[in-house]
C-alpha cells in the first residue's frame, strides 16, 4: 500500500499497463508535455515517448474514431477526452463504431479501448465544462461504463479497463483528482467489473451513490449516525455491468432506498437504478425511492448558484430525514 492521489493512481495504472503491454498507448489533447488538462498523464510522455503518448490536434471525432481502428488492428488505445461535456463530439464514433462493431460483424471484430473522461462540476467551469454524461453511455449496448470514487478503485478499475476486450467509458470526477488514499502496489491489482462495494454498513436505509457522491454519502452517514440513523452506502463502481444483486440485497435489509448522483435527474443513472428496484425489489420498499440529483438545468457559473445546484451531504441528510 502507498498513499496516492486519485490522479496519481490513474497515472500509475496507465504506466504499469504500458510497461506490461507494448500495444497500450495513450492519445488525447495536451496529454504529452502539458501533462493533461488535469495533470493525469503527467510525465508519462517522458517515460514512454511521443509515439505512445500522443498529443492530438483538437479532433475528438478522430481521437475516438482512430481509437476504434487502432483497437480493431491489435493495439490498445487509452484515449482522453478532456471534459465529459465534450463527449457529444465523438458520440457517433462511440455509439455506432466502438459499441456496435463486435455485434455488427457477428463477433469477428472487437474493440479493446478505453476512453478516460473527466466528469462533473464544482470548479466554476460553467455550463460546457461541468457536465455528467454517464447516463448516455449506459443506454448504449456494447459499452462498459466505469466510475471510480477513490484512488484505489481508480487504479484497479483502470487497469481492468485497459485489459478488457471491449470498449470502456471511464469516468473520473474532477474534484476527486486530488483526493488521496491507500493504493495497492501489486502490478496485477485488478478490480472486477460488476462488483459493487458496500462502503459502509447500515440497517436503516440504503444509499446507492456514484463518483463524488460516494464521499458526500459517507459524510452524510457519519452525521446521521450521530442521530442514531444507520445508513448503508453502496458504490456500484461500474454502471455497466451493474451489480443489481448487491443493491437488492441491501434494500431487502433496509426497506428504504435513496440514490445519490451528481447528474441532472431526468433520464439519469439514478433513474435506471430506481427502475430496476421498482421492477425487482418493489416489495422490499417501505418508503418511496428518492433520487438526490442535480436539477434539470445546465450548470451555472456563479459559485453561489453552483453550490445550490450540486447535490451534497446536506441535501442527502435532508432527504434521508424525510424517509426515516
Amino acid at each position, binding site marked *: 500500500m502507498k498513499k496516492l492521489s486519485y490522479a496519481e493512481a490513474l497515472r500509475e495504472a496507465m504506466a504499469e499497463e504500458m510497461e506490461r503491454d*507494448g*500495444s497500450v*498507448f495513450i*492519445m488525447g489533447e495536451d496529454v504529452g508535455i502539458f501533462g493533461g488538462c488535469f495533470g493525469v498523464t503527467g510525465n508519462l510522455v517522458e517515460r514512454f515517448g511521443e*509515439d*505512445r503518448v*500522443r498529443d*492530438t*490536434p483538437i*479532433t475528438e*471525432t*478522430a481521437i*475516438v*474514431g*482512430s*481509437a*476504434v*481502428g*487502432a*483497437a*480493431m*488492428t*491489435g*493495439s490498445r*488505445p487509452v484515449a482522453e477526452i478532456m471534459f465529459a461535456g465534450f463527449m457529444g463530439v465523438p458520440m*457517433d*464514433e462511440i455509439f*455506432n*463504431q466502438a459499441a456496435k*462493431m*463486435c*455485434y*455488427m*460483424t*457477428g*463477433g*469477428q*471484430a*472487437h*474493440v*479493446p479501448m478505453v476512453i478516460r473522461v473527466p466528469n462533473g462540476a464544482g470548479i466554476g467551469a460553467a455550463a460546457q465544462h461541468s457536465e455528467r454524461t454517464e447516463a448516455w453511455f449506459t443506454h448504449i*449496448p*456494447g459499452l*462498459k461504463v466505469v466510475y471510480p470514487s477513490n484512488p484505489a478503485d481508480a487504479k484497479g478499475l483502470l487497469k481492468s479497463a485497459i485489459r478488457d*476486450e*471491449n470498449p470502456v467509458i471511464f469516468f473520473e470526477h474532477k474534484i476527486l483528482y486530488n483526493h488521496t488514499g491507500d493504493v495497492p502496489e501489486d502490478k496485477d491489482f485488478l478490480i472486477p*467489473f*460488476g462488483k459493487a462495494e458496500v462502503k459502509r454498513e447500515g440497517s436503516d436505509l440504503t444509499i446507492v451513490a456514484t463518483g463524488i457522491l460516494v464521499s458526500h454519502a459517507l459524510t452524510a452517514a457519519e452525521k446521521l449516525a450521530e442521530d442514531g440513523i444507520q445508513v448503508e452506502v453502496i458504490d456500484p463502481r461500474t454502471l*455497466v*455491468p451493474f451489480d443489481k444483486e448487491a443493491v437488492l440485497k441491501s434494500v431487502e435489509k433496509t426497506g428504504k432506498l435513496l440514490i445519490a448522483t451528481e447528474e441532472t435527474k431526468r433520464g439519469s443513472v439514478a433513474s435506471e437504478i430506481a427502475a430496476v428496484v421498482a421492477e425487482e425489489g418493489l416489495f422490499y420498499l417501505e418508503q418511496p425511492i428518492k433520487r438526490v440529483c442535480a436539477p434539470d438545468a445546465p450548470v451555472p457559473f456563479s459559485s453561489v448558484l453552483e453550490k445550490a445546484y450540486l447535490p451534497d451531504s446536506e441535501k442527502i441528510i435532508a432527504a434521508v430525514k424525510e424517509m426515516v
Partner: protein
Amino acid sequence: MKEANEKLKKLLEDMLVIREFETTVQKHFAEGEIPGFVHLYLGEEAVAVGACSALTENDYITSTHRGHGHLLARGGDIKKMMAEIFGKATGYNKGKGGSMHIADVSLGILGANGIVGAGLPIAAGSGITAQILDTDAVTICFFGDGASNRGTFHEALNMASVWNLPVVFVCENNMYGISMPQYKTEGRKGQNIKDVSDRAVAYGISGVTVDGNDVMAVNEAVTEAVKKARQGGGPSLVECKTYRWRGHFEGDPTVYRSDEELEQWKKKDPIPRFVKILKDQEVIDDKGYESLRSEVKSRIDEALQFAQDSPNPDPSELTTDVFYGGAE
C-alpha cells in the same frame, strides 16, 4: 510475362465477379428475398479492383455502405457474402450485419460502415497500429464524394498527415451522394470544387484524380500511394471518378439525374474497356473471355443456392456478440 498476364486476367475476373454478384443481388432484392437497404457497386468495379490489387495480405481496408465490391476485390468468400446479404446464419456476420455491414475481418476488412465517413478515422487508427506495433501494413480507406463533406474526412486526413500515417484515402467520386451532385457549376451541389483531390492541399499531402473506370489507372495511382505509405512517406488522397449505374439504393427512382447522363457513363463501362485492352495485348481471346464469364456466373449461382438453402439464425443469437468473449 505469363505472370503479368495472369495478374491482368485476375483484374478482369474480379471485376466480372462483382458485376455478376451485384446483378444477382439486384434481381433477388427485387423479388423480395433480401430485406433492408442494398447499395450496389455496378459501374464502379474498376475502383475496388484497381485499388485492392495494390495491397498485400497483411494490409487493411475500410469499406462503406456500398461495400460488396470492396469485399469481393479483397477476396471475400462469395457464399458467405450472399448468405449474409440474405440474413442467414451461414453469412459472414451470422446474419446480424447484412449488406451494409458485411465484412471479413480476417482479410483485414475493418467493417463495412453504414455511417457515411465513419471509415476515415478508423483507417487512421489502423495506421496508428502500424506505428505502435511497428509493422509495414498499409490501410486503404474507401469513401465517397459525399463523405468528403463530413467532418470525419477533415479530422482523419489532418491526423494522418500530422502523424505521417500509412493510409491511402481512396475517394470513389461517383458524382452523387444520394440525390446531391458532388459538383455542378450552378444549383445544388455537395461542394464547390471540381475535384475532391483539391482538398489534399489543406493537409499538406499529395492528391491525385484518376479515371475510376480505368482499372489500370486506378491500380497505378494506388500502387504508388501504397508504396509511398509503406516506405514511411505518409498518407495520400486518390480520387477515382466513376458513376453508379443503379439508384442510390435499390428502389431509388433517380429523379435527380438524366437518362442521358447514365447512358454516357455506360459507354465508359470499365469491363469492356479493359477486355479490349486484354484482347489487343492477346492476354485473352473471345473464347477465353466467354469461359471466364460462364465460370464466374456458375460460382455466383452456387453462392445464391447456398444462401437460399441456408438456415436463418437461431433466436438465441439475439444477444450474443454484444460483448466480445461473452456477457457483461
